[in-house]
């Protein structure tokens, strides 16, 4: 075992546990358990808000999968990855104050709470809670596989043992600390991701003998490595541009990201988060993917993309520094998983159980249930991740696209179009998820664009069409909704 690398990682885990214990104090003293456990009582300041958004969004694919692909494809993949810059400012400005204000008017704790009040429909709630549980569960499994592989790759532990360590670490602090623990650990993890990115990029540039040197090495191997079209010229401008939908603007529809847009304390905090979030996401995405490309001349011939990051870190940095840098992908994975874990729990407890199974449950019961549901989901994911499916990045993107197609319009149109109603939302969710699965299976990358594009367009069409067709039927409910959500 490489102790130089392992010790900084252990330190990292210890810090994370302390944060969990710190946050658990708030959980014990909070008057409203649900608001605290699932939303941190809407107390996030600007810096923590920015970091938890970036860290939740930045995942195994930004730190492990993405740089691995960049290694093979070249600068074209960095170009594609920079479409993610938009997530830094778009989500917060578009959901923005309106989402935060509306969520407060109805005391919403989850995205589904908002949809429930906005559309007043049982089916909207059931469909959206189901999509969250199914899609985010699989996303979580993919992330756990990534986390365990990472631990495995630099500690030499067996995959199952690594998975076990990873699972226990995340479960403990999420269960004892809830959303506040998740947000604060996300902040620590985000800081590690930010500085880890800079260190590894600089280390790789130095090891490669400077940028000019690296670029000419790449061009000598294959000129297309430094073109925007990718090493085999398969990246068309249309395909690359379609990622603006998948990882740029579509991120608005991801529940784990959207829920953070109602967790902040004040509009000043939101303003700061816009700036900090954009800078942090820009630096991380550019730095990590560029490192993946630059690793090629430094460490040629790596076959498995996912090992590029750990191997380049151990190659170009002294062991202790590599340990700190390798805490970054670990942090990225943990900070995504912890949010997903909490979100899936909230979908089960708040959106399903408290809405339809037992609305009268006592505070004590809700508390016990929330904690045990989180634990059970964690254990289930662990069991699924033992037999790991390959190609982490694509698994992750599947859940991603499905959720975006389901939620983007019910959320955005729900906020900004008063005529949008329950029929529109149901049609939109069904069309979005259904067509995504169909396109994914039978016509992947239709017309040369990423699979997500057409389902997103179709679900918009369905939303508008069905809302307009059923104006009469929803007239009374819409009036009540307007009173509740829009009136001063």
């Amino acid at each position: 075992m490489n102790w130089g690398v392992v010790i900084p990682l252990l330190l990292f885990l210890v810090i994370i546990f302390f944060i969990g214990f710190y946050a658990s104090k708030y959980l014990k003293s909070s008057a409203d358990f649900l608001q605290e456990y699932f939303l941190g009582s809407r107390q996030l300041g600007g810096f923590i808000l920015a970091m938890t958004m970036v860290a939740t969004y930045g995942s195994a694919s930004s730190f492990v999968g993405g740089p691995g692909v960049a290694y093979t494809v070249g600068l074209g993949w960095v170009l594609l990855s920079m479409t993610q810059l938009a997530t830094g400012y778009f989500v917060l400005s578009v959901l923005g104050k309106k989402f935060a204000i509306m969520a407060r008017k109805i005391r919403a704790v989850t995205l589904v709470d908002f949809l429930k009040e906005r559309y007043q429909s049982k089916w909207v709630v059931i469909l959206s809670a189901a999509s969250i549980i199914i899609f985010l569960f699989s996303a979580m499994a993919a992330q756990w596989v990534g986390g365990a592989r990472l631990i495995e790759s630099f500690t030499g532990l067996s995959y199952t043992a690594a998975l076990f360590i990873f699972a226990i670490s995340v479960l403990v602090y999420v269960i004892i600390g809830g959303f506040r623990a998740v947000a604060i650990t996300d902040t620590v993890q985000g800081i590690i991701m930010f500085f880890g990115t800079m260190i590894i990029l600089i280390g790789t540039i130095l090891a490669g003998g400077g940028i000019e040197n690296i670029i000419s090495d790449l061009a000598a191997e294959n000129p297309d490595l430094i073109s925007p079209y990718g090493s085999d010229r398969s990246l068309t401008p249309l395909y690359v541009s379609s990622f603006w939908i998948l990882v740029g603007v579509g991120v608005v529809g991801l529940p784990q990201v959207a829920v953070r847009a109602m967790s902040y304390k004040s509009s000043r905090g939101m303003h700061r988060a816009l700036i900090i979030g954009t800078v942090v996401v820009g630096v991380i995405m550019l730095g990590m993917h560029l490192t993946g490309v630059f690793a090629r001349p430094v460490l040629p011939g790596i076959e498995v993309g996912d090992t590029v990051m750990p191997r380049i870190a151990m190659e170009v940095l002294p062991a202790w520094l590599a340990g700190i840098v390798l805490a970054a992908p670990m942090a990225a994975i943990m900070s995504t998983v912890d949010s997903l874990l909490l979100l899936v729990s909230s979908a089960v407890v708040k959106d399903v159980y408290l809405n339809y199974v037992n609305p009268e449950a006592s505070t004590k019961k809700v508390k016990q249930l929330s904690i045990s549901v989180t634990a059970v989901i964690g254990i289930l994911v662990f069991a699924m991740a033992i037999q790991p499916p390959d190609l982490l990045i694509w698994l992750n993107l599947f859940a991603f696209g499905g959720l975006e197609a389901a939620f983007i319009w019910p959320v955005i149109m729900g906020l900004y179009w008063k005529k949008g109603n329950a029929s529109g939302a149901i049609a939109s969710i069904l069309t979005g998820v259904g067509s995504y699965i169909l396109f994914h299976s039978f016509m992947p990358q239709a017309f040369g664009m990423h699979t997500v594009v057409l389902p997103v367009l179709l679900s918009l069409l369905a939303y508008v069409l069905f809302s307009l067709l059923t104006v009469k039927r929803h007239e009374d409910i819409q009036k009540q909704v307007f009173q509740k959500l829009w009136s001063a």
Partner: protein
Amino acid sequence: MKQQDKNLEDPRYKIANKEALIGVALVVVNFILWYGFAYGFGSGTVEEYDYIFGFPAWFFYSCIAVTVLIFLLVILAVKFLFKEVPLDEGDEE
């Protein structure tokens, strides 16, 4: 402020709607610059590329310069166009 007029829209939404449009405008600007530089400078043959700080010019402009420019635009937008409003009912900060 709650009971006055049930049909009057919350005045904070006007500000919120404007800021959402600013977000959309930023994405449009971001996309056009990113696309224009990448394929404007990068679609020729690699042998004819210009280089800036060691990077191919298309990459330097579309991925590095545009990113920095967007940082600046976001800062300017937040400082000059975004307004602070209280988020809770009647709770001034």
